[in-house]
Structures are given as structure tokens and as C-alpha cells.
């Protein structure tokens, strides 16, 4: 039961939501699917005075492609199952759908939103490493205007982002994967729980940009490790070993909790980064479309 009094708003347009945010700023909290915010309020850990729901703004739930720019545009309140089912996501950013399939359970995927997950910025959230690997941007809006923030800069620390109190996430903008191939791997003890560590790999063909593995669950924000050298060397023993050393070096002080100490988490990060990289490279070699 939520005990703290609150004022609830359900604006019908982005402009109306931005006006409310401009007026209430720090006292207001944006409500997406509510998968994290509502339980947090029920537990009394969040006590916002004003809640602004985005669930009645149809324009925010659209998934579209910008063919000229070669980008996919996912509205902030697209549900996880919208992302998973979208033919446009399958065509332009299948890595993102791969990651989304692992979120929570059916009920959570039905209601939870990509913007909510990105704004909440749990360091082990499934989307985060995928967005960093894909070089995606977070499009945020306020009455002051629009900012397009690269995912690698948007995620700052544990549940800390570049989002200002008067801004909302309007869109996630993802460059089309094109001929690049991705894969997502995660470690978890129980289906439905957050990952202990997770990794998203994107392997680009020679001459079309860097290959990368982004790793979550080890630091406050996703850690990106360049895999281009390992990929161009054919992911052979020594090149793969050098990549694994680079992952270890990129995770100097992993989280420690009941799920694992630093040494365990670092090694799990190495293993899942390697598995994601090999799976993505396998897909690239096989010429499969996802």
C-alpha cells in the first residue's frame, strides 16, 4: 500500500507532460510502465509528491524507422513486448530484441517500457549494454528543447543518468545494425531476476566500424570493451585471450554482493563477454540475419 499522499497526472500529449515537468521539476516523478517505480513507492523508498503518467500519450509509444538517416526510433513508452514483436526492431536492431526477451517475465514485458528501464538505469538492466553496443542515443525533451545523448554518456552511475529533473525520455534512437551482427548473454540464478552480469556484443564486418562488447552488472554504468582486434584476428587463442584480459582490465572493481564477490563477478563478466562475442561472430560468419 502506498502511504505517501500524491498528486497524479495523466497528460494526453508530450507538450502537456513537459509543462507539468517544468512546473514541478524535482517534486515530480515520471511514470512509465511502473514496474520499478510503483513497487518502490509501495515500499516507501520513493515518495514523489507528483506522479506524471506517460501511459496516455499515444505518440510516445510509436516504433518507426528513419530510412534516410538509417535509424530506428523507439518511443519512450514502447513496452518491452512491443520491442520484441516489432518487425522494424527485428530488421534494424535485433540485438535489442534479444536483450528485451530476457527482461523479467511476461507481465513485466507487457507493461514495462524501454524509456522506464533506461531512466531507472539499474546497472544490470538488460537493455543497457545492448544500447551502448549499438551506439544508440537517448532523446530527451523538456520545455527548454531537445537533447540527443549517446547511451555511453547517458548512463553515469548506479541509477544515475544525464536526465535532468524537467526532462523526459521521448525516444531511443538506434543506428541500424546493417550488416553487423549482435548477441546477448546474461548470468542469472533464477529466471525473471536481474542479471548478475550481462554482455551485449556487436560484430561489424571489416572496414565498417569497431566491434564491441558492452558489459553490465560490474560497474555503475555499462563498460564497453573494443573487440575489433580480436575479431579481425579471427578470435583465435591469443587474440581471444588478449580480449579477455581487456575485459578484466575494464572491470577493476566489480560490485560485491550476495550474488558474488569481485573476483567471481569479474570472471563471469569475462565468460559472458566471450560467449556474446563468439555468438555474434558466429552469426556474422554464418550470414544469418539476427
Amino acid at each position: 500500500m502506498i502511504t505517501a499522499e500524491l498528486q497524479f497526472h495523466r497528460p494526453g500529449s508530450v507538450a502537456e507532460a513537459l509543462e507539468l515537468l517544468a512546473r514541478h521539476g524535482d517534486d515530480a516523478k515520471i511514470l512509465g510502465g511502473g514496474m520499478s517505480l510503483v513497487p518502490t513507492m509501495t515500499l516507501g523508498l520513493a515518495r514523489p509528491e507528483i506522479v506524471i503518467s506517460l501511459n496516455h500519450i499515444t505518440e510516445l509509444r510509436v516504433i518507426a524507422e528513419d530510412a534516410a538517416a538509417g535509424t530506428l526510433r523507439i518511443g519512450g513508452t514502447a513496452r518491452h513486448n512491443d520491442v520484441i514483436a516489432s518487425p522494424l526492431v527485428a530488421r534494424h536492431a535485433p540485438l535489442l530484441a534479444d536483450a528485451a526477451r530476457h527482461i523479467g517475465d511476461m507481465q513485466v514485458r507487457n507493461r514495462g517500457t524501454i524509456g522506464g528501464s533506461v531512466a531507472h538505469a539499474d546497472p544490470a538492466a538488460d537493455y543497457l549494454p545492448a544500447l551502448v553496443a549499438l551506439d544508440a542515443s537517448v532523446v530527451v525533451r523538456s520545455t527548454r528543447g531537445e537533447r540527443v545523448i549517446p547511451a555511453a554518456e547517458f548512463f553515469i552511475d548506479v541509477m544515475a543518468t544525464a536526465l535532468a529533473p524537467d526532462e523526459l525520455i521521448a525516444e531511443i534512437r538506434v543506428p541500424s545494425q546493417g550488416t553487423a551482427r549482435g548477441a546477448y548473454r546474461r548470468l542469472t540464478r533464477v529466471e525473471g531476476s536481474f542479471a548478475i552480469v550481462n554482455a551485449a556484443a556487436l560484430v561489424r564486418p571489416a572496414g565498417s566500424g569497431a566491434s564491441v562488447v558492452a558489459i553490465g552488472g560490474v560497474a555503475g554504468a555499462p563498460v564497453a570493451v573494443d573487440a575489433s582486434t580480436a575479431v579481425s584476428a579471427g578470435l583465435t587463442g591469443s587474440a581471444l585471450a588478449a580480449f579477455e584480459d581487456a575485459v578484466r582490465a575494464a572491470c577493476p572493481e566489480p560490485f560485491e554482493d550476495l550474488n558474488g564477490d569481485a573476483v567471481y563477478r569479474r570472471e563471469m563478466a569475462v565468460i559472458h563477454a566471450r560467449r556474446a562475442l563468439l555468438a555474434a561472430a558466429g552469426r556474422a560468419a554464418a550470414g544469418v540475419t539476427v
Partner: protein
Amino acid sequence: MQTTIKLTVNGRARTVEVDSRMILADMLRDQLRLTGTHIGCGTGNCGACTVMLDGRTVKSCCVLAADADGADVLTVEGLYTSPDDLHPIQQAFIANQGLQCGYCTPGMILSAKQLLDANPDPTEDEIRHGISGNLCRCTGYHFIVESIQDAARVLRGEASAPSASITGLPASPATDVAG
């Protein structure tokens, strides 16, 4: 803060005055007296409060009632018209003893409906993944899985519904006290 919402619950139009702090599960139970929706953890983990919102299962403890304005809600009560005319999934849970204490059952049944609506012939693995958002602390899930397999056969027209009735159901779920 009080707010008025209009929504459809089990096919019936409703206008409800709710406190903006109220979760959908409490509104269904306390204001509409539809107590088939259970609340277990209240934090989105157990799935006992699962209902369908606009045709998709959600955990109604994680939805503010005020946010359900305009929504179409289906609860376990909306699946049957009389105790003699239960939904095939409900009949299969009774016939296969897909429950012990019964607390998780309404949510389990709606998750089964979501699964079978999209996938009429699921594998056992798909069933187990489909109900992964619903915890049962009694059964070990085995009879629940068998219940869903049985219901799937009936819904595909490959078997007739088992004869199953149960005690304690409201005679007419559509007539409740509010609204």
C-alpha cells in the same frame, strides 16, 4: 487526492472514484469487490495479482488505479458466466488439481490464458516460461503445467472439456456490490 476514472471491467463499463495512491489490485478488490484478484507480495514478484489490461497480462499491484483510466480489464471473474459454465482453463485446473491452497490460481489462470491466446500448442518448456511470472509455493508446478496442457487440448478442439465444478464460487460474478 481523489480522481475519477472510467474503465471497462469484465465487459462492464465502470466509473470509479479512486485515491491516486491506490493500486489497481486494491481497486478491483475493495471498490468493485472482485476479490478473485489476490495480492501476494505487492511488489511485482509473485504474480498473484495478474489481470489482463487491454488484452495483456499485467501485475495489478504495479499499476496505479488512476492510470487504468480508459482501460479494458479482465479478471478471473470475467472468465466464467456461472459456476456451471467455467472457462476451459478453469475446468482444467480443477480436473487436474492444478492448485493446492489456491492463492496463486487466479493469476496462474490468466497467465495461462495469455500464453494460450498467443500459442495454442505450447511445449512444456514454453508453458514453464509462460508462467515464470507466477509463483506457486505449494504444488511444484507439475499439475499446473498439466492443467495448461489439458486446457490447450480442449481449446484446440482435440478433447472435450473435463466435467469439473468447484465449491465457493459466486453464483453470478457479474453482479457485485459496486458501481
